[in-house]
C-alpha cells in the first residue's frame, strides 16, 4: 500500500546514483580482470549511460529491464564463460530493478511523505546494517555448506572449488556419514539420548515451573537459583562432579537391579543431559506462565475438573508453545553437548558431538561438515514447524488476556 504518491526523480540524480553502484560493481569485476581502477571508471560510465537511456523510455520498463538483463548476461558469458554469464545475469537483473527503483522514486512509496532525504537514506542504511548482521549470524552455515561437498579431506576451499569445477566437489563425505559405523552409531545415540533427555527435563521442568509460578512458594528465589544452576556452573566442573554421582549410581543399578551395562550407560547420559536442559525449560515455561490466565484453571476446577484433568485439558494445551520452545532448547543442549558426555558416557553412548570432537582432534574430515549440513536442514524444518505451530496457537489464544 503506497503511503506516498511517487513522482519520478530527476534523471541526473538517478544517473549519478546508478553510476555509484556501477562503480562498486566495476571494482569487483575490474579486480578480477586485473585492473580495479579501470573497472571503476567503466562501471560508473556504463551504468550512467544505461540509466540515462532507460529513463528516456520509462513507459517501456519491462522490456528495458529484460534488455539490460540479457546484455549483462551476454557480456559476462563472453568474458568468462557460463558462471560469469550467470553472475552477469544477476547483475543485470539487479541494475534493471535499481535504475527504476531510483528513477521512479519507488524507494519513497512505502515511507511517510515528510521524511528528509537523509532520513530515507538512514532508513535503507539501517536495513543494510541489519542485513549485514544477519549475514554474520549465518556465516558459518554459508561456509559449512559448500565445504561439505569438498572433494578433499581438509577444511579448505580448494582452487577447484573456487573455479566451480565439478572436480572439486564430491558427495563422498555424505557417503562417509551414511556408511561409517561410528557416525551411524553416534547419530543413532544422539537421536535416542536427546529426545529422552528432553522429555525428562520438559516433564519435570514444566511441573516445577507450574509449582514455582503459584503464589505461595517458600524460598522461591533459592529454589529458582538451584534449578538454574546447571546453566551457570562451568561445564567442565559439572562434568567431573556429575561423573562421580553417575558412576556410583550406575554401579547400584547394575549390581542391585541387574540392569545391563549398556542400558545403564544410556540412563546416565540421559539423566546428565536432562539436568543440563532443565534451566532452559524452567526459564521459558515460567516466562510463559507469567502471561497465563489463572482464571482458566480456576474455571476448570469450578466446573468440577480435578487437578490432573485441568492440567491436561486446559493448562497444557495453552502453554504448549512455551513448553515446546523450552523443549527445543533442552534438545539442542543435549544434541550439541560434548564435555559432559565425554565424562559420563562410555563408548556405547558416543553421541554426534563426541564423534565430531574426536574427529576434529584426530582426523579432520569434512564428514563433520556434511553432518552439520544435514542437521541445519533438519533444524530449518523443525523451526518452520514450530513457527507454524506458534501461529496456530496464537490464533487460538486470540482473546486470552496476558
Amino acid at each position, binding site marked *: 500500500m503506497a503511503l506516498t504518491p511517487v513522482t519520478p526523480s530527476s534523471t541526473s540524480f538517478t544517473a549519478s546514483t546508478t553510476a555509484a553502484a556501477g562503480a562498486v560493481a566495476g*571494482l*569487483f569485476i575490474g579486480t*578480477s580482470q586485473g585492473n580495479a581502477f579501470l573497472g571503476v571508471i567503466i562501471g560508473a560510465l556504463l551504468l550512467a549511460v544505461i540509466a540515462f537511456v532507460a529513463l528516456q523510455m520509462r513507459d517501456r520498463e519491462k522490456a528495458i529491464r529484460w534488455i539490460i538483463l540479457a546484455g549483462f548476461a551476454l557480456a559476462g558469458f563472453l568474458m568468462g564463460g557460463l558462471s560469469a554469464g550467470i553472475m552477469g545475469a544477476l547483475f543485470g537483473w539487479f541494475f534493471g530493478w535499481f535504475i527504476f527503483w531510483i528513477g521512479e522514486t519507488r524507494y519513497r512509496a512505502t515511507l511517510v511523505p515528510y521524511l528528509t532525504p537523509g532520513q530515507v537514506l538512514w532508513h535503507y542504511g539501517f*536495513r543494510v546494517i541489519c542485513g549485514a*548482521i544477519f549475514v554474520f*549470524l549465518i*556465516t*558459518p*552455515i554459508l561456509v559449512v555448506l559448500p565445504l561439505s561437498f569438498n572433494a578433499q579431506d581438509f*577444511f579448505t*576451499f580448494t582452487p577447484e572449488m573456487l573455479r566451480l569445477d565439478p572436480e572439486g566437489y564430491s558427495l563422498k563425505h555424505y557417503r562417509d556419514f551414511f556408511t561409517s559405523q561410528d557416525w551411524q552409531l553416534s547419530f543413532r545415540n544422539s537421536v535416542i539420548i536427546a529426545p529422552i533427555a528432553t522429555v525428562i527435563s520438559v516433564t*519435570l521442568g514444566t*511441573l*516445577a515451573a*507450574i*509449582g*514455582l509460578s*503459584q503464589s*505461595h512458594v*517458600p524460598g522461591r*528465589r533459592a529454589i529458582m*537459583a*538451584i*534449578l538454574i*544452576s*546447571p*546453566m*551457570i*556452573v*562451568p*561445564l*567442565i*566442573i*559439572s562434568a*567431573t*562432579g556429575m561423573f*562421580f*554421582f*553417575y558412576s556410583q549410581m550406575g554401579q547400584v543399578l547394575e549390581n542391585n537391579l541387574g540392569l545391563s551395562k549398556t542400558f545403564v550407560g544410556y540412563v546416565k547420559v540421559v*539423566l*546428565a543431559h536432562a*539436568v543440563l536442559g532443565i534451566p*532452559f525449560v524452567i*526459564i*521459558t515455561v*515460567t*516466562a510463559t506462565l*507469567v502471561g497465563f490466565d489463572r482464571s482458566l484453571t480456576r474455571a476448570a476446577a469450578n466446573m468440577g475438573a480435578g487437578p490432573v484433568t485441568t492440567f491436561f485439558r486446559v493448562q497444557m494445551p495453552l502453554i504448549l508453545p512455551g513448553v515446546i*520452545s523450552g523443549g*527445543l*532448547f533442552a534438545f539442542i543442549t543435549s544434541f550439541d553437548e*560434548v564435555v559432559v558426555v565425554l565424562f559420563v558416557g562410555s563408548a556405547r553412548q558416543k553421541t554426534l558431538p563426541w564423534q*565430531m570432537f574426536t574427529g*576434529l582432534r584426530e582426523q579432520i574430515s569434512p564428514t563433520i561438515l556434511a*553432518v552439520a549440513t544435514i542437521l541445519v536442514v533438519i*533444524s*530449518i524444518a523443525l*523451526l*518452520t514447524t514450530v*513457527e507454524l505451530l506458534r501461529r496456530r496457537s496464537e490464533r487460538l489464544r486470540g482473546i486470552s488476556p496476558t
Partner: protein
Amino acid sequence: MSDTTQSSPVLAADGRPLKHSLNRALRRQKMRALALILPLLAFVLLTFIVPIGQMLFRSVQNDIVQNTLPQTVIAVQSWDANSGEAPDEAAFAALAADFKTAVENKTHTRVGSRLNYETPGISSLFRKAGRKAKRWDLETDGPFKEQFLDIDEDWGDPAIWRTIQKFSPPVTSGYFLNAADMQLGDDGVEFRPENQQIYITLFKRTLFMSMIIMGSCILLGYPVAWLLANLPSAKANVLLILVLLPFWTSLLVRTSAWKVMLQQQGVINDTLVWLGLVGDDARLVMINNQFGTIVAMTHILLPFMILPMYSVMQTIPPTYLRAAKSLGATNWTAFWRVYFPQSVPGIGAGSILVFILAIGYYITPELVGGTKGVFISNRIAFHISSSLNWGLAAALGTILLAAVLILYWAYDKIVGIDNVKLG
C-alpha cells in the same frame, strides 16, 4: 493498615497471631506447589548440586598427607622449619615406617604427586624411596636418615621437609592461594614469582574479554532486536529463524567455520587480497588471538543477547514514541530519550546472560584463542583432565562460580530471572 506502627503482631479473631492463621490457611497451597517442584528439586540437588559441592570441596581438602604419613606428620611437628637442616633420625624413622605401610597399599606415589605440586622433584624422591622401602626391615635396617640420604641426597634438603610439614593439616588454603597466584611462603602468604603468575591475569582477561564479547553482542544485537520488534510479526518470525539457526548448528562446527573464515589463508583474507585491499604478504591476523575469540564467541552468544532484548522491546508500546514526537521530539531524540531507556532491561538481561555464559566457555577459546585468547576455564579443564590437580581446578572453579553467582544475584535484582524469554 490503620495501625501499622504498632509493634505487637496483628491478631486474628481467635486471638492467635494473624500470620499463624494465615500459614495454616495456606499450608495446603504450599504443599501442593512444593509437591510439584519437589521431584525436580530433588533430582537437581541429588544429581547436580551435591556432586558439584563435593567437587568444589576438593579445593580445601588435603587429608591425603595425614592419612598416608600419620607418624611422620606427628614427628615433623616439632621440627624447626627455619633451622636450615633436615630433621633428626626420629622423623626419618617415622617416615620409613609410614613408607612401609604406604608401599604395601601403593599410596606413597600418590602423596608424592600431591606434594610435587608444591615442590617439584618430590614425586621421584618418593617413587625411588618406595622401591627401596619395600625391602626394609624396620627393626634392623636403621638408622633411616642415612638410608634415605643414600637413596637421594635431596632427602636432606629442608625444603622437602618444610613442604611435608606445611601440608600436613587435613584442610589447606594452598589451592586457593595458588588460584590467586599466591603461595604459602616461609613467612606467610606471598605472591608467587612473577614467571609463575598466571591465574590473576587469566581471571582478569576472562572478565575483560567477556565484557568485550558482551559489548559487541550489544552493538550487533540491538539493531537486530529493534528491527525484529518493529516488524510485523509474520516477517519478524522469519527473521527470528535466521537468529536461531546458528544456535542450532553444532558449536564445534561453528567454531571450525570461523577458523576457515578468519585464518590468514582463509576466506576473508583471500577476498581482501583478491580485491587488492590487502597485500598478499600483509594478510590480516584474525585468529588465534583475542580477535578470533571475540568474533567466534560473539557469534555464538549473539542469539542469547537478541532474544531477551527482543522480548523486552516487544513490550514497549509504540505510543511512547508517538507521544514523544507529538511533544516535538525528533526521531533521534525520541529514540534516545524515550525508547532506549525503556529497552535497558532487555540489554541488562541479555548482557548478564551472555556474560555468564562467556565466562564459562572453554572449547571455543581453546580452538580459536591462541595464547592471548584463552580463558580461565581452559586452565580448569587442563587441571582436571591433564595435570590431575583437581584441588586447584576446584579452587579456580569455586572462584569463578562465586563471580557468576554475584552476577546472577545482581541480574536477579535488576531484571528478575523469570523475565528472560528465550523464544
